[in-house]
């Protein structure tokens, strides 16, 4: 737990320092080439850029912890041009999108995890048969294809040639749950295809690794059916690696989500991230990056804790 927090802290330093490697400073970046020195000085003061690097870092970190992520450059520009005061804060921009991304990830996980584990068990049960080999080739292909290829193939077949699902996920607030689910389904299916393949292969490998153990031999010799051997004896012992793989893939979802959200114009945090990268909206990029990293670290940490919980030998160390 402490290790995870420490990693997160160091990651936040890395992100902050990386962003401060920018030539010139934010003030010139916002105002462009032809800015007057007075305007630059004013913006520098507004953003607190006249303070030292260390005090700015702690200010930023403190803001992060209290939910104040600063204000977006793009919004600032826009608002000040219109004569308004301040703009939409980064937190206000990110919050609804973060909820959308979590929704997408949850739907994907609900579809993908049961399918992956079931298929993995089946592949281990019928190993070295036609089914296993076909599954091997299919999963290998879907792991190695880029996400946008999968996305466009799915759009082609499920949205254009057979109009079953909408190809654009225009989600807005106050939408009925069923509508929202329908619009989320196609991006979720794309992510499912990518993630399931990996989880299934690892489940299969984890179970097959155990099949040479003496207790499996024993269970077989006493006449148990192959399915019962795997579900009752192999699966509980393979839980730790399987949980690890599931968490790892959910963490991977966070990265995959960026491309898929762009393809389907899904209003999630990944889309916001890419848009901000393009217009160099540094505070938003910084905040998104930290959120992604935090989710990534958190999931890996959860995996470690769960795999300890699932293993009695680790739960009660000698």
């Amino acid at each position, binding site marked *: 737990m402490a290790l995870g927090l420490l990693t997160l802290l160091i990651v936040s330093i890395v992100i902050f320092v*990386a962003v401060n490697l920018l030539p010139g400073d934010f003030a010139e970046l916002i105002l462009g080439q032809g800015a007057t020195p007075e305007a630059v000085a004013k913006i520098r003061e507004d953003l607190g850029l006249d303070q030292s690097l260390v005090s700015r870092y702690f200010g930023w970190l403190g803001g992060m912890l209290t939910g104040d992520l600063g204000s977006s450059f793009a919004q600032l520009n826009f608002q000040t041009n219109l004569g308004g005061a301040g703009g939409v804060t980064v937190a206000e921009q990110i919050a609804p999108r973060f909820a959308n991304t979590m929704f997408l990830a949850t739907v994907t996980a609900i579809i993908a995890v049961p399918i992956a584990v079931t298929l993995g068990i089946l592949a281990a049960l019928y190993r070295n048969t036609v089914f296993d080999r076909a599954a091997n080739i299919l999963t290998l292909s879907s792991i190695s294809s880029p996400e946008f290829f999968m996305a466009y193939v799915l759009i082609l077949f499920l949205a*254009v040639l057979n109009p079953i699902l909408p190809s654009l996920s225009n989600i807005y607030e106050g939408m009925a749950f069923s509508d929202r689910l329908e619009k989320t389904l196609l991006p979720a299916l794309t992510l499912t295809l990518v993630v399931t393949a990996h989880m299934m292969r690892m489940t299969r490998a984890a179970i097959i690794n155990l099949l040479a153990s003496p207790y499996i031999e024993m269970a077989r010799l006493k006449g148990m059916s*192959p399915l019962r051997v795997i579900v009752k004896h192999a699966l509980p012992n393979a839980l730790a690696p399987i949980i690890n793989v599931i968490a790892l893939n959910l963490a*991977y979802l966070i990265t995959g989500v960026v491309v898929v959200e762009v393809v389907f114009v899904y209003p999630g945090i990944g889309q916001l991230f890419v848009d901000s990268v393009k217009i160099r909206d540094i505070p938003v990029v910084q905040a998104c990056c930290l959120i992604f990293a935090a989710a990534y670290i958190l999931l890996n940490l959860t995996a470690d804790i769960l795999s300890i919980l699932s293993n009695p030998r680790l739960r009660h160390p000698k």
Partner: protein
Amino acid sequence: MSALFNIALGVAIIAAVAWSFRFIGQKVTGNAARFRDMSFGVAFGYVLGLVVLLWLVWAYLQSISSDQATANKFFFLGVAIKAFILFSILAWLFRLLGRNVGTAGTRKMFRNIPLTASFGILVIIFYAVLAIFAGAIAPYGQDEIISGVAANIIPGGDPALGGDPAFPLGTDQIGRDILSRLIFGAQNTVGIAFATTLLAFFIGGSLGFLAAVVGGWLDQVLSRGVDVLMAIPSLIFALLLMTIASVWSAELGIPLTFFMVLIIAVIDSTRVFRLARAVGQNIVVMDYIEAAKLRGEGMGYLVFKEILPNATAPLLAEFGLRFCFVFLTIAALSFLGVGIQPPLADWGTMVRDLASFINFAQFAPLAATAPLLAAGAIALLTVAVNFVVDWMLHKSSGLKE
């Protein structure tokens, strides 16, 4: 809801057919061992496989039906089926060729190679030829805007559809030949990915071996640093650094692509570092390293002459996988618009630029070919490399259960 009901009904029918298939089998063959010991799952699998096969045959027949609307609907499935059969035959022929031509070593290698791996090698050779000789093969330049030609992305060059036989895959929105851009895309995308992977291996490999040989505080510092870098998702980190690099590149006048190679190489070198260090640590404890140290050999000799030759096999397999990751990252960055910059032709950018044509596929299926070809070109290469790596790993791990 009705779709779910239909699926459930289908599964129930297959289950019933599977049960009766096994039952009839037992009766007809007089309870032969094959049917007597068949579990229900296996019977279900047979019937399901048969249903899928029949459906594919039916879909293929639909794709060549005379009714244009149905044929359009199944056009891509038909193409996929044809491609699958064609690729299988090609892979088989290539394996046959490999078994009979070449030195004794290569013939031995081809004797028990699976079809997937032979397909992978064939595709890799094809891409390598395209990438190296792109300038000679491509009919037009990659950024050559052909004047006087109407934009037409329908492949085939059929004058009746407004095409021109001189451009077999059509021309894009601003009148560049799509075929030439695809071929040059092989050179740019694959070449840049290859260079990036080499750089990542150079950085990660030498630092990893160094950490293994020297150990102590250097090992600690490097390993913890790598831990931190690996805690940030790689695509996210790459995007963050690309934002910064885009400002720098405007400032310094260095192309953004150069920064991209550097950034992805550094991010991916962390994974190489982990492997190189682990492999190196196993080798460092060997006696011959001790002997070399006692001879008074320098660090460079130890790393490049003693450790590297003994670490080639795992590093080579990792090279294939790493290449795939780098290639996919670059494609994703280009697709998002921050990777390889125009006027260089590149597949990720092509997909993004042409993607909207997919929506016309319902009426003119050929309109969707261009974006799918570019995306498919990426997928084909990574799948091929993965097939070969999978086979190599399987071979080196021996025959597991």
